[in-house]
């Protein structure tokens, strides 16, 4: 099934995952610590009849990706905090027009230019709420180089399946970590494609209300001649300001994610069944937390780890369940409190929550988490 393990860094694995998922268009703008994704895509894409373009900025990068995706091609861009901020407007456009695309955001120290070569987790909330208005979004958060590969493929599959932008969120450490990765044989990765209209439909509705709430997509040239707009629109694609129609259109957008959670959610749980002390962490911090849990278990402490792999929509039910069994919840994160806001919301009254926040550009280590658990 798989090739011999190969040593790759995260950004390289991301590019290979994208190619395996069927990505055939990349538009991006250089930014540390994500630039290697673009560099690898520029090398790979010509070999698979794809197109690479370096645009004039991140705004144009995501715009070009959406344009190419509307043309029928799977697309990706990669950036970091400052560039991700610039992409927010078009991210909303992709959500509103239900255009599949994948955005890689390699988190670095912020705010502003911050610490470009240092890791952070400051974009957890920006990834969810960065663009204006109530919008659906899917964010996956890989924690290893292997997972960057598999989650990039999964991000494309989710984007295609749900016609929505999907963000792959990891940090500078995962981006530049060199690890062994097992790659599936060529053509063996599970790949999903969006539902295409056949071209034979009469009175085709580009935003029809289908059973799974995900409309079938028309490819330009197939004869439907549809209109695509960021204005609030009815199933025929044309704008509306009628309250009942606007409400219906916007609720379907949100519902297509919420009501399909069983196909979107993914969490990793380690020793949570009997955990009295529950650690909730994402990305690289979760790897340190996993080591801390192992250390504590060896000391006889009933610790467990819950790691959202699909970070948004947030795994509310899974966190509630695990939190119910625990007496203390520990949330380590490389920001001043973003993941912990969700945990505080879900943990229930009277639950003790201990948080660890680092914003100095250094990772949170296992010892730091273990010590917090011991003191909890």
């Amino acid at each position, binding site marked *: 099934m798989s090739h011999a393990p190969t040593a790759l860094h995260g950004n390289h694995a991301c590019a290979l995952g994208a190619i395996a998922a069927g990505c055939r268009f990349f538009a991006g703008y250089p930014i540390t610590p994500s630039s290697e994704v673009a560099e690898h895509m520029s090398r790979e894409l010509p*070999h698979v009849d794809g197109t690479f373009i370096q645009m004039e900025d991140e705004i144009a990068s995501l715009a070009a990706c959406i344009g190419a995706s509307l043309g029928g091609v799977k697309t990706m861009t990669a950036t970091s905090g400052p560039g991700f901020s610039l992409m927010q*407007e078009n991210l909303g456009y992709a959500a509103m027009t239900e255009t599949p695309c994948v955005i890689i955001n390699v988190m670095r120290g912020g705010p502003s230019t911050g610490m470009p070569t240092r890791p952070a987790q400051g974009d957890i909330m920006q990834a969810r709420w960065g663009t204006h208005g109530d919008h659906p979004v899917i964010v996956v958060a890989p924690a290893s180089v292997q997972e960057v590969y598999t989650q990039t493929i999964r991000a494309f599959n989710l984007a295609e399946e749900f016609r929505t932008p999907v963000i792959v969120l990891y940090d500078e450490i995962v981006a530049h970590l060199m690890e062994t990765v097992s790659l599936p044989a060529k053509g063996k990765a599970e790949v999903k494609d969006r539902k295409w209209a056949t071209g034979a439909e009469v009175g085709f509705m580009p935003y029809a209300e289908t059973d799974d709430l995900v409309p079938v997509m028309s490819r330009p040239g197939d004869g439907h001649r549809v209109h695509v707009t960021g204005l609030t629109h009815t199933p025929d694609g044309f704008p509306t300001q009628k309250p009942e129609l606007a409400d219906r259109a916007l609720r379907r957008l949100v519902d297509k994610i919420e009501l399909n959670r069983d196909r979107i959610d993914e969490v990793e749980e380690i020793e949570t069944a009997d955990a009295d002390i529950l650690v909730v962490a994402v990305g690289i911090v979760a790897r340190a937390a996993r080591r801390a849990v192992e250390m504590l278990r060896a000391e006889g402490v009933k610790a467990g780890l819950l790691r959202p792999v699909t970070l948004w929509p947030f795994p509310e039910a899974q966190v509630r369940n695990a939190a119910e069994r625990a007496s203390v919840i520990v949330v380590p994160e490389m920001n001043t409190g973003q993941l912990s806001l969700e945990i505080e919301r879900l943990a229930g009254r009277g639950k003790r929550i201990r948080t660890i926040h680092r914003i100095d550009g250094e990772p949170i280590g296992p010892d730091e988490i273990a010590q917090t658990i011991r003191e909890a």
Partner: protein
Amino acid sequence: MNEMVRTLEPFEIKDYLRLQLMPHFMCPGCGHGIALRALLWAVHELAIDKNKLAIVSGIGCSGRVGAYIDANTFHTTHGRPLAFATGLKLARPDLTVVVITGDGDCLAIGGNHLIHACRRNLDLTCLMLNNEVYGMTGGQVSPTTSANRLTTTTPGGNAEPTFDACKLAEAAGASFVGREVTRQAMALKNVIRDGIAHPGFSFIEAISDCTEIYGRKNDLGESPEMILSQKSDMRPEAFGNVADEPFRPNRLVTGILAKQARPEYGAAYRDYAVRVKSKPGRPR
């Protein structure tokens, strides 16, 4: 559809419009309808299959024009239609991609995308409808608002200098640059037609009047007066009215202003890909 037969048919604008969207929402006297007609006429003369025609527009009055065209239409974000169109055209070179934009959309918020689109010389046609004002938002000053004109944000008259968009486009590398006025609908049609047919990036400025907001604010008369003023304003040498009081102080010249043979970027990239693929070994 049989293209040979279609070219022989007289131009009937209704064949290219989404009639279910009528009445349109443009103001009385707005020049954008003339520009729309000129564009569709050009499309007809070139016998472009409307299934293979993609219209990409931005935000503003110009941005709303595209929706009335019975083609693949993309109403994108403010200032970004050229960036969307770049992705679309690279992914789908089989489509004819026309961008409809405005003076604010193209030159202010989208100025960076314009100069890079000119530089790349991808086979796109950029039709910029210049009405010298932000009409959709109520009449604010734009990069092409003439000197001393009144707008809602220049209550004492515009003190900023203006852009010559065609000079900008040519300097940035656009391989086809043209300008026409809505008064000269046939000439506008011809320059759009030549621009679409040109293999490379074509920039076309259509001078279009905003009568309801800009005209009223500056006491430029009703639509007939404004459109007549284009005569003395645009082609003084052609009409012999150099001494007329111009409605626009900038005496802009019209027609095809620049045309040069430069490599079209889409084809250039595809050639590059063939060369890369033919090399033994693959960089990792």
